[in-house]
C-alpha cells in the first residue's frame, strides 16, 4: 500500500493515531518511572505489563489479517482498512514492545522473541518499501506486462507466431522437403501457417495482439508475411533455432545475448545486414517477441521482489505468535 507523497493524505489520521499513542505510551512509561524513582521499568512493572498486553493484543490483531484475506467474501471491513490498520498498528508495536522490554534482552526466550519480532517488523517494512517503488517501475518498464500466471502461456503463443513467421520466410528445411518427397508430411510442415488461419489478414499475420479487448483493438502489430520463401534466409532459421527460440522459451534462464537490450539490438542489426530486405519486417516482429520476453522476465523479477518477502514475513509472524503465548505463559507462571 502506498503511503508516500500524495498518498499520505489517506494515512494522515492513522499517522496521527500512531504518534498520539506512542507519545502517550512514552509519557506514561517515563512518568511512572519518574514517579516510582525507577530507572527503566521492565515487563513485569505495571506500565510494562500494560504495554505488553497492548502489544500482544496488537500482534494477535495483526495475525488476523491472514484469515481476513482467506475469507474474502466475508464482510469484515474492507481489505484496505485492514491493511492500513495492519501497517500502522504493526509499526505501533515497535515503541510499545520496546517500552515493554525495558530496553533489555531478558532471558533466552525473550531474546529469541525480540529477535523474531525485529525480523517480522523488518520484513514487513521491507515489503512496504517494495510496494512504494516496484509497481511504478513495473508500470514504466514493462508496458507489455500481462497477468503473472499467464506469462508462459502468452510467451508460447508469441513463440508459435515467431516460428510460423520463420517458416513462412525461410520455407521448409531441406531435410523436411526430402522426407516429404518420400513420406507423409512431417510434423513441422503440418505446422506451417494455414491460409485459412484466422490470425491471417490479407497476407499479414497479427503478432502480439496486445491488450485487445474483444472488439476494441489494442496495440496491434501486423506483419506482412512473404507469400513465397525469401531467398538466402537459411541464416535466419539457424539463428532462430540456436538463439532466438531457446530465449523465447526459457528467457533469462537461457544465457543469451538477447536477454540484454543493447546486445539484442546488435544481434538483430547483424542479422538484418545479411538478410534480404524483404525479411526485415519479419525480423522486426521477432525482435518485438524478444522484447516481450525481456519484459516478462523483468516482470517476473519484480513480481518476485514484490511478493517473496511474504514467505519470510508470514512464517515468522506465526512463530512470533506462538512464542508470544509461550512467553506470556512463562512470564505469568514465574511472576
Amino acid at each position, binding site marked *: 500500500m502506498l503511503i508516500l507523497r*500524495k498518498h499520505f493524505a489517506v494515512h494522515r489520521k492513522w499517522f496521527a493515531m500512531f504518534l498520539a499513542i506512542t507519545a502517550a505510551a512514552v509519557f506514561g512509561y517515563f512518568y511512572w518511572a519518574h514517579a516510582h524513582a525507577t530507572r527503566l521499568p521492565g515487563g513485569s512493572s505495571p506500565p510494562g505489563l500494560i504495554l505488553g498486553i497492548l502489544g500482544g493484543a496488537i500482534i494477535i490483531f495483526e495475525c488476523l489479517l491472514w484469515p481476513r484475506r482467506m475469507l474474502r467474501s466475508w464482510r469484515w471491513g474492507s481489505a484496505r482498512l485492514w491493511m492500513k490498520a495492519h501497517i500502522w498498528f504493526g509499526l505501533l508495536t515497535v515503541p510499545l514492545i520496546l517500552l515493554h522490554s525495558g530496553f533489555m534482552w531478558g532471558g533466552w526466550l525473550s531474546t529469541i522473541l525480540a529477535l523474531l519480532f525485529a525480523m517480522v517488523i523488518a520484513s514487513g517494512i521491507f515489503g512496504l518499501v517494495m510496494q512504494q517503488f*516496484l509497481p511504478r517501475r513495473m508500470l514504466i518498464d514493462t508496458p507489455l506486462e500481462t497477468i503473472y500466471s499467464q506469462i508462459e502461456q502468452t510467451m508460447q503463443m508469441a513463440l508459435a507466431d515467431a516460428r510460423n513467421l520463420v517458416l513462412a520466410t525461410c520455407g521448409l528445411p531441406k531435410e523436411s522437403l526430402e522426407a516429404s518427397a518420400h513420406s507423409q508430411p512431417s510434423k513441422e510442415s503440418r505446422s506451417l501457417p494455414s491460409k485459412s488461419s484466422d490470425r491471417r489478414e490479407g497476407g499479414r499475420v497479427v503478432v502480439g495482439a496486445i491488450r485487445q479487448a*474483444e472488439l476494441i483493438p489494442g496495440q496491434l502489430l501486423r506483419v506482412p508475411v512473404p507469400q513465397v520463401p525469401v531467398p538466402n534466409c537459411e541464416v535466419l532459421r539457424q539463428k532462430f533455432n540456436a538463439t532466438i527460440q531457446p530465449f523465447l522459451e526459457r528467457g533469462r534462464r537461457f544465457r543469451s545475448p538477447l536477454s540484454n537490450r543493447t546486445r539484442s539490438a546488435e544481434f538483430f542489426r547483424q542479422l538484418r545486414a545479411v538478410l534480404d530486405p524483404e525479411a526485415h519486417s519479419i525480423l522486426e516482429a521477432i525482435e518485438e517477441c524478444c522484447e516481450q520476453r525481456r519484459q516478462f522476465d523483468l516482470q517476473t523479477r519484480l513480481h518476485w521482489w514484490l511478493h517473496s518477502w511474504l514467505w519470510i514475513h508470514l512464517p515468522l509472524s506465526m512463530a512470533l505468535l506462538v512464542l508470544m503465548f509461550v512467553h506470556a505463559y512463562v512470564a505469568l507462571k514465574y511472576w
Partner: protein
Amino acid sequence: MADNAYEDATAQLWEAEGLFSRDVDGQLIRVVSATEQDYVKDVTLTIDGQTVTVKKAVPTTDSQGNVITDQEGKTIPRSTTIYDAAAKLFVRKPGDVNPIPILCHQEHMNPAGVCRICVVEVFRGTGDKRRSGGKLLPSCAHRAEPGMEVHTLASTDDKSRKRVQSCVKVLTELLASDHLRPKENTAPARDKDTQNELEALVERVGANPTRFTSGSPVDRGRDNSSILISVDHNSCILCNRCIRACDEIKKNFVVGRAGKGYTAKIAFDLDDPMEESSCVSCGECMVSCPTDALTFRRPVVSDWWTELVAKPEYTAVSPEELKKMPLFAGVSYKFLQWNSASVVRRKTKKGDVLCRQGDYGATAFILNAGEFGVYIGTPRKSADEGPVGFFGRLFGRGAKRADDNSTDYGTQVSTRTPEHLILGEMTCMSDVPRTATVVAMNDGEVLEIRRNVLYVLQRNPAARKLLDTVYKERALQDHLRTISFFQDLSREERHDCVEFLRDKVTLLRVDPGQNIFRQGEAVVQGDEFVGHFYMVRLGYVKITQTLHGTERVLDYIGPNRHFGEIALLSKIPNLIDQHVPESLVARRTATCTALDDVELVRIRGEHFSELILRFEKLRNKFVQICKSHLDQNKPVNREMGLPLGGFLDQGLFNAQTLLVMDLESCTRCDECTRACSDTHGGIVRLIREGQRIDKFLVASSCRSCQDPYCLVGCPVDSIHRKGSLEIVIEDHCIGCGQCAKNCPYGNINMHGFDVVREYPPDSGCQKAVIQQKATTCDLCRQVVGSSQEVSCVYSCPHNAAFRMSGSELLKIVSGKADLHADKSTRQFLSHPV
C-alpha cells in the same frame, strides 16, 4: 457420347441465357437491382380494385426495422414488393389482415419465395391491352410495378379470385398431405393448443388435407437430442424460415439443408444432431417455424413471473388471450407460448403505483382498462447510494429507501387511458430510467410485458409504427421539459419557449460512426437554412476539428447537451460573427459524429434563429456559450495531452462503473480476482487485464454502460437492469450467447453449469447435464446487496481498485480531479456509482 455436353440446342440456349429470363411476350429480360434513385419514384398499382401508391424501392432493414448500411455507410435499396403494397393498403393498424396469405415469408425476413402460397394474379395494361401474365406470381418476392392490377384471394373479380384460390388450395393440400400429421403423431411437445400456420391455412382456404395423402408417408425422422428444442422433420415444409432466422436474424449460420427429394430436410451444421452441433439454442428458428417441425420442450419461467403471480393482484396470461389482442396479432404464437411467463396481468386499484420516476425497469404496461396519472417530480434517490459501512447499518443508513412509500409524485402532467395503448415503453426501448411516475387513478387493468415481448412486437411493421409514434411523441415532450439551456429562464419565458418549439422539434436517430455534419459545411443555401440545431437526448457525439490536416478531438457531448449553434448564430449579424473567422461564417466549425446509437432532438435552422431573436435572455446565453467554445477551441488555448481520442476509442464515455486499477498502487496480488471468484461461487467475473489509459488499467469487468448493447435481443429477457444500475443475468438464461456477442468489451462470458434435466429427452431419466449460461459482473448486488461495496474493490488491500464512471476517470487522467486528494473524491470513486 459426344464431346459436346449439351444434348440439344434448347439446352445450350438455356445455359447461354444464364441469369436472364423471358417476360410474358417471350422477350429476354433480366432483373435489375433497385437503386437509390428509386426511393423517390412512386409506383401506383391496383390491388383487388383499390389503388395504392408506394415508393419503387425502400432501404433494406433488419428484423427490427433498423435501416442497414453498407461499408460505405450507404443504405441498400430493396424493391417494394406486391406484398408490401398490399400491406400498406390493407394493414393500417395491428390486427388488420392482409388478404395475401403467407407461409414461407415473414415481414421481418427477406423473402425466399419457396412456398408460392402468396401467389396473386397480375394484369398489365388497360383496355384492349389488358392481359394477365399467364403465370401466378409470388407477391412476397415480385416487385411492384406501375399500372399493375393485382388480384388476391379476396379479389372482387370472380375469375381471378377462383384461379388464385384454386392454386393456393392445391398447394396447401399438397403441403398438408405430406407434413400436416395428426396431432398424436407429431412431436411430443405439440399440445392441443399449439398453433400450426399450415393448419390455419388449410382452414382459411378450405383445403382438404388428406386429398393427396399416400398410404405410406416417408419418415424423415426426428431429432430429440436438444434439451431445449425438439425437431420433427416430418412436419417440416422446407420453407427456409428457420434457416433465414438463424442466418439473417441471429447471424449464427448453423441451420441449413441436407438431402434431396423426399429426404430433403433441415440440418444443423453438417447434419449433426442438434445437441452436438454448434447451435446455441437461441430459439429463433423455433419461433420462426410455421409448423410443428421445431418446437420448444418447456416454456421459459422467470423468477419475476413466479414472484408476481403469487401476489393476489397479478394473474398469468395465456398465449390464446394475447393472440386475440390486435397488438399481438403479428407475433409468433410459439413465441408467446414459449415466453408466456414474460407477461402478467395486473389489476390496479386507485393509488397503485405502476412505476416510479428515476427507477430502471425492464417492463412496459399495456393499458387494458382504467385511467392512469402521469406525474413528473424530482426523481427519487437511486438505490445506488453507495456502500454503507458497519456504522451506517447500525444507524439505519441503507435501510429501505424512505420514499418507497411516498405519495408525493410531483405534478400530474397527463392522464393515460387504454386509448394511449402503452406506458413505460421508453425505459425498455432506450434503457434510460423511468421519466415519470405512473399512478392508477381508479380501478383498472394492465398487462405488464417484458422487454423481449416488446422487442418481438417491434418486428411487426404495423405494431412498430404504432410504438414508434408513441415513443417519439413522448420522447419529445419529455425532452422539452428538461432542456438544459432553459434553466436560467423565468417560468413564463420557459413556458413560452416550450410552446414555441412544441411542433417544431423532430426526433432523429443516428447510427454509430455516422456524421451529423462536417466541418466547413454551409448552414444556408441562398436564403434557405440547410443546417440545424441539435440537442442530444440519448447517446454521445464526438466533436472533432481538422487543422492543418490533423484531426483533433475537441470534446464529446452527451445527453442534455447541444451543438450546432455556432454556425447558425454566426449567420445573424452582430452576435458572434466578429469572433468567427470570415471563412467560417455560417459554416460548421467542427465535425460532429455519433459515437454510439444517438437520439437527437432537432430544431430547424430557421426556427432556431427565430427563437434566438425572439427571446433576448436565451440569445445572450447562447452568445456567451458560443464565445466560450470559440475561445476554448483556439489552438493556443487547448489543453495538450488530454487523452480524449483514446478515451473515446475505448468506449469509456458510455461507462458508469468501470473497474479501474491504479497501477502505481497495484501490487498485482490478484486479490480482486480471487474475491470475485469467492463471492460468485468460483466463477470469476473480471479479468485483471484490459485497456490502459495513463497509469490506470481498465479491467475487463462489466461497465454498466449507459446504453448497454448487451440488453438488445435477449430472446427470454434474462439480462436486464433490475431497478438500479447493475446488469443482472437471471437464472432462466438459455445460454444462447447473444448478450456475450453483443458486448463490445468482452465482459460477458459463457460458463457451463450443471443442471439436472431429463436426459436423453423423453427418457424419464434424470441426469446432470451441462448448460451454458451467461455471466457478468452484477456489482455483487445479488450476493451482498446494494448497500455494500463491490467485492473486487472491497478486497483490494492496496487501495488500488476503484469503481468510477468514464467521465470521472477522464477528470482524473486530465488532472481535473485527484484520486487521493480528499475524502469526498475518494468516496465517490470507491462507490459503485
